[in-house]
């Protein structure tokens, strides 16, 4: 790309786009600025322990679960749709996985596949209804928010004989490679080695204070990178932008808009199932109230990350950063002397600021006045 730019003579009418202008074109700029601001804030007010390795892991763990949902929600928003049912889907998928393992005693791999397939199918139902009725996805998925939540409550009571919690799933899942992908810590040997060589903090016994990286963080980072690659570098990514930017124009140009949107709904549902699996495998239980309000938090993280509510613009890395901001603020306040309930005020303010900033950027990008 850069080679052709130098071969072809530059247009004298074009001011060389300054670094600042080029940065402004990136949708995730706002999130980056927001993250810098939040780090600055906690750098001043928070206890130093927040910025140790242990503190960072504590902040990232909740960010990771939200982040997986946020990245999927961002892709769907760029594709021009919403999914408010993902929070409830976390509970429903948790129920399916839990019942498969602890009640039906299926092997872990079968239970896992069953959960993913059910989630994908429900996502496809969402998408099909939205596309064929042309109703706003906001209202269709709002209906499913309640349907899934209700089903989770009813299903759990049925499975447990009256309780809304199902325990003992971890034991039923057993150990081994596959369950290990969804639970516990990764890189334990590396951290032990680093502790032995005095590169990280350790207990007097020689064990590192931080034993490894929670696997959910690895899923979060991996998913965000994959989503970014798909969005920016593949044909599917171009179709997602096109479908959200102007579905009619995209259709006229030969983009299969309906399949693209349906696939995105399936992706958000499966990402909710992934989060459910991580939660179930790490706590060994499932609960009908899992994932409550996560649908809103995911949308907030995506918007902070630069997604436009009208679709066609946004970034997966932005949603990734948005989720980290979320995690920092929600956990970080406990490291300060502020009441941690300020969290919600802070978040609402952040959201409002992000929306204002995004609409300003949109005008810049499109040249609209």
């Amino acid at each position: 790309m850069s080679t052709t730019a130098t071969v072809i003579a530059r247009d004298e009418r074009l001011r060389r786009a300054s670094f600042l202008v080029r940065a402004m074109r990136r949708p995730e700029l706002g999130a980056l600025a927001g993250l810098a601001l939040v780090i600055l804030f906690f750098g001043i007010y928070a206890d130093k322990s927040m910025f140790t390795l242990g503190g960072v892991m504590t902040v990232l763990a909740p960010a990771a679960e939200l982040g997986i949902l946020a990245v999927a929600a961002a892709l769907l928003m760029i594709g021009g749709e919403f999914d408010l049912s993902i929070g409830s889907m976390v509970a429903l998928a948790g129920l399916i996985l839990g019942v498969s393992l602890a009640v039906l005693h299926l092997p872990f791999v079968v239970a896992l596949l069953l959960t993913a397939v059910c989630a994908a199918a429900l996502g496809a139902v969402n998408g099909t209804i939205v596309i064929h009725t042309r109703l706003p996805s906001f209202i269709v998925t709002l209906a499913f928010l309640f349907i899934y939540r209700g089903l989770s409550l009813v299903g759990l009571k049925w499975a447990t004989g009256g309780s809304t919690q199902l325990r003992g799933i971890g034991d039923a899942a057993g150990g081994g490679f596959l369950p290990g992908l969804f639970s516990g810590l990764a890189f334990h040997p590396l951290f032990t080695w680093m502790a032995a060589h005095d590169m990280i903090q350790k207990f007097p016994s020689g064990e590192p204070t931080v034993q490894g990286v929670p696997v959910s963080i690895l899923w979060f980072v991996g998913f965000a990178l994959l989503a970014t690659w798909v969005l920016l570098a593949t044909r599917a990514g171009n179709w997602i932008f096109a479908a959200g930017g102007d579905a009619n124009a995209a259709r006229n140009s030969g983009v299969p808009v309906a399949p693209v949107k349906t696939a995105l709904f399936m992706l958000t549902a499966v990402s909710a199932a992934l989060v459910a699996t991580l939660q179930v495998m790490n706590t060994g239980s499932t609960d009908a109230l899992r994932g409550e309000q996560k649908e809103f938090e995911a949308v907030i993280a995506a918007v902070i990350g630069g997604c436009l509510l009208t679709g066609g613009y946004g970034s997966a890395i932005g949603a990734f950063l948005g989720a980290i901001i979320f995690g920092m603020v929600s956990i970080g306040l406990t490291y300060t002397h502020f009441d941690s309930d300020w969290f919600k005020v802070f978040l609402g303010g952040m959201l409002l600021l992000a929306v204002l900033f995004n609409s300003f950027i949109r005008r810049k990008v499109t040249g609209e006045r």
Partner: protein
Amino acid sequence: MSDAPLIEVRDIVKTFGSVIALNGVSMSVRSGEVLCLLGDNGAGKSTLIKTLSGVYRPTSGEFLVDGKPVAFRSPRDALDAGIATVYQDLAMIPLMSVTRNFFMGREPVRGIWPFRRLDFARAQDVTREEMMRIGIDVRDPHQAVGTLSGGERQCVAIARAVYFGAQVLILDEPTSALGVAQTSVVLKYIHIVRSRGLGVIFITHNVRHAHVVGDRFTVLNRGRTLGTYDKSEIAIEELQNLMAGGKELAELSGALGGTV
């Protein structure tokens, strides 16, 4: 190249229930020719182009492409036959870059699945080259289409159709929403496209724009062809009168002391 016109329709009739939108329209366009389709609102221009581009199927009449009868069932069929239509609303997405828009739906890829990815280097080169060829320097192919002027956007849409193998270009009022300078950009481009051997059907109700680039003029009125004229046969004023269907405009024009 054969002598048959690229597209020819004879006595096309199209009815919607009891409404007769086209009542025996005939026209043809040859390679390297700009045919202007003129007519006031309600004359049947839109119905005719939608028939040509495969959106509607004619109720009766002949439709020949390269001298052979065809029956398109969808816009895709028409595209495959080399007939591309650039609609007023452009099929461009303002928030996406020029390159991404240019290749939308027909992205070049490289690599093997699952590592197949967009061939951005090629897409970028082709976009720049095609735009240069029509005399528009898309200064930065990364820039969003929304930052281009209306005329430039029309040209991107036309360049895209040409690049993807159109033999006949149908332009639906490409200049109606444009200012003077931008109109001249588009008209200049129509001229370039013609010299490359394409057939162009230029729909407009602006006689002046038509007269600048048109080789022949087919005038529609109330669903019928009033006639087809070579540029040498007819003056602007006559065309204007034909199009408006009569004297009223001439009188008005007289009263206002000029041509409307």
